[in-house]
C-alpha cells in the first residue's frame, strides 16, 4: 500500500514538475525534424535514379539513426530526472518526513524506482512507436523485431536508473550525476571502439569494448537492440554505423540484467544502512 503510494507520488512528481512534459515536447521536436528528414529523402529519391532496393536500405538506416536518437534521449532523460531523487532528498532533509513513516526503507527506495520505471515505460513506448510509425508512413520501412528492440532500450534505461539510484545513496546530486554520466560516456566510447574493431582482424579494440561494457553495460544493450531491429542486409554492410561487426551476445544482455539487479540490491542495502 505505502509502496504504491510512493510509486504514484514519484510518477506524479515527474508530471507536476513538468519533466515528463518537457521530455515529450523535446520528443515532438525530434519527430518534426525526423519527419522532415524522411520526407526530403523520399522527395530526393523520387527525383533520382537510386534503385528501390537501395532506397529501402538507406531509409532503414535513417530509421536506425532515429531510434538511436530516441535511445540517447531516453537514457539522458532517465539520468537527469532521477539524479536528484535519492541524493537530493537526503541532502535537503526532505527524506526525513518520509523515512519516519511506518514504511521500511526498501519500500521507499523501490517505490520511487517503480514510479520512474512507469514513467520510462510510457516515454519509451511513445517515442519508439512514434518513430517507427513515422518511418513507416513516410519512408515505407519497418524495423525487424521492434518489440524486442524497445524492451532492450527499456532495460538500458532501467539499468541507468538503477545505477543512478545506487550512487545516489552515497553521493551528492552533482557527484552522482558526474559519476553516472561518466560511466555512460565510458560505455558509449567502449561500444564505438568495439564497433571500429571490425576493420582489422584480431583488433585489441574488441577487448577494450568488452571491458567497458562489463564496467557499464548500457551501450552494449543498445548495440544488441540495433542488431535485433536492423534489416539483415543493412546490418551486414560494414559501413553502416550499426553493422553487426561485434554484436553483444545474449550472455552480455544477461550480464546487464544481473548487473542491474546487483546495483538495485546494493542501493537497497546501503539506503537501509546509512544515516539520514
Amino acid at each position, binding site marked *: *500500500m*505505502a509502496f504504491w503510494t510512493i510509486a504514484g507520488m514519484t510518477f506524479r*512528481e515527474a508530471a507536476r514538475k513538468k519533466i515528463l512534459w518537457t521530455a515529450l515536447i523535446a520528443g515532438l521536436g525530434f519527430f518534426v525534424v525526423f519527419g522532415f528528414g524522411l520526407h526530403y529523402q523520399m522527395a530526393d529519391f523520387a527525383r533520382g535514379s537510386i534503385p528501390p532496393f537501395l532506397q529501402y536500405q538507406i531509409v532503414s538506416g535513417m530509421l536506425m539513426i532515429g531510434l538511436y536518437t530516441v535511445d540517447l534521449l531516453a537514457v539522458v532523460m532517465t539520468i537527469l530526472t532521477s539524479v536528484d531523487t535519492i541524493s537530493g532528498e537526503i541532502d*535537503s532533509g526532505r527524506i526525513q*518526513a518520509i*523515512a*519516519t513513516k*511506518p514504511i521500511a526503507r526498501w519500500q521507499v527506495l523501490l517505490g520511487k524506482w517503480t514510479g520512474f520505471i512507469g514513467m520510462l515505460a510510457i516515454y519509451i513506448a511513445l517515442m519508439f512507436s512514434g518513430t517507427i510509425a513515422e518511418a513507416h508512413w513516410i519512408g515505407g520501412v519497418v524495423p525487424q523485431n521492434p518489440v524486442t528492440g524497445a524492451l532492450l532500450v527499456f532495460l538500458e534505461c532501467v539499468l541507468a536508473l538503477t545505477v543512478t539510484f545506487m550512487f545516489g545513496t552515497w553521493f551528492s546530486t552533482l557527484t552522482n550525476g558526474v559519476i553516472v554520466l561518466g560511466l555512460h560516456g565510458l560505455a558509449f566510447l567502449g561500444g564505438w571502439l568495439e564497433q571500429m574493431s571490425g576493420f582489422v582482424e584480431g583488433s585489441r579494440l574488441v577487448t577494450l569494448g568488452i571491458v567497458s561494457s562489463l564496467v557499464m553495460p548500457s551501450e552494449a544493450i543498445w548495440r544488441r537492440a540495433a542488431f535485433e531491429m536492423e534489416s539483415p542486409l543493412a546490418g551486414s554492410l560494414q559501413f553502416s554505423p550499426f553493422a553487426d561487426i561485434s554484436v553483444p551476445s545474449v550472455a552480455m544482455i544477461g550480464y546487464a540484467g544481473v548487473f542491474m539487479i546487483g546495483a538495485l540490491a546494493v542501493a537497497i542495502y546501503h539506503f537501509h544502512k546509512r544515516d539520514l
Partner: protein
Amino acid sequence: MERPLDHSDHFAIQTQNLRKVFKNKVAVGNLSLSVRRGEIFGFLGPNGAGKSTSIKMLLGLVKPSGGEAYVLNVPASNVEIRRKIGFLPEDFRFYHWLTAAELLALHGRLSGVPAATLRERVPAYIDLVGLTPHRDKRLQAFSKGMLQRIGLAQALIHEPELIFLDEPTSGLDPMGRRLVRDIIRSQRERGATVFLNSHILSEIEITCDEVVFIRDGEVVTSRDLRTTRAEEIRVVIRARKLTPEAIAGLAPWTTSAVLEDELLTLATPTQDVLPDILRHLVAAGADVYQFTPQKLSLEDLFMKIMGEDRGL
C-alpha cells in the same frame, strides 16, 4: 548503578547510554533519559549538544553506535511503531509541487490512515493550523511560517501517541507561536506525549511539564517545571550597612550572594526562606530599602547550568 529500563506503559521514551559517533566526532556521548507518557517534554541544550542527532536516533533515522533507545515500549528501530509517532523536522521541506491538502492526504496515507477518515481529517487539520484559505495552494507559494504550520499538521494528521517537534515555532509570528502552543497543549489533553526541542526558552517554560538540559550528548540535569516554577528564586536587595559578616550569615539559605554597591543579589532554592533572610539582615543591623524576590527564568537557569558560551 544504572537503573534498568522500565518496560511498563509508564514511559513514552526511554534511552540508556545512547551514543552516536560520526567518524571521529562524538555527537551523542551517553544519553540516558526517560519521558513519561502524556507530558510535554522539553529537550534543551546549546548548539552542537547532540539534540538533533538524539531525536534522529529516536526516530530511526540515525543508527546508534551504542546504547538502547525505546519509544512507546519498543526499540526505536521498529518500523510499525511509527504509525503512532508524528514528527516535525526542524526545517520542514517537502515536495513544493503538492498543495496543502494533497500533502496532508499523502502523509495520512503513508501513516496508514484510511481514505474515508482522511476525507474528514484533512480539512479539519488544515483548519486547525489556520491554513483553510490556502488549502489548494501549492507549497512553493508558502512562506516559512506557513510551511511550519502545514508541517505541524502533517505530524498530527494520524493522531499519534508520541509527537516529536523540532523547533516548531521557528519562522512563526507571535500569533503563529500562540497557535502552536495551544495545539501542543491540546495534544497533551488528548493524551499524547510531546517531545519538544526549541531554542525559544520562554516558549518551553510556559509549555513544558519537564525539561532536560543536555551538553555533549549527555543529560546535565533535569527540571520538573510543574514543581520547580515556584522555586529557584532570585532576590534583589537594596540596603545600607551591609557587613561581610551579615552576608556570610546568609549562607544557610542561599546558593549565591553578589554585592555591588548597595545592591545585594541572592539566589535561593525556595521562597520559604525569604522571611528568614530578611530577619537576618535586619538583625545584623542593615537598613533595607528594597527586598524584591524574582523567579529565576528558564533562560537564567539555562545560562547557569550551561555556563559560558563556548562559541558552538
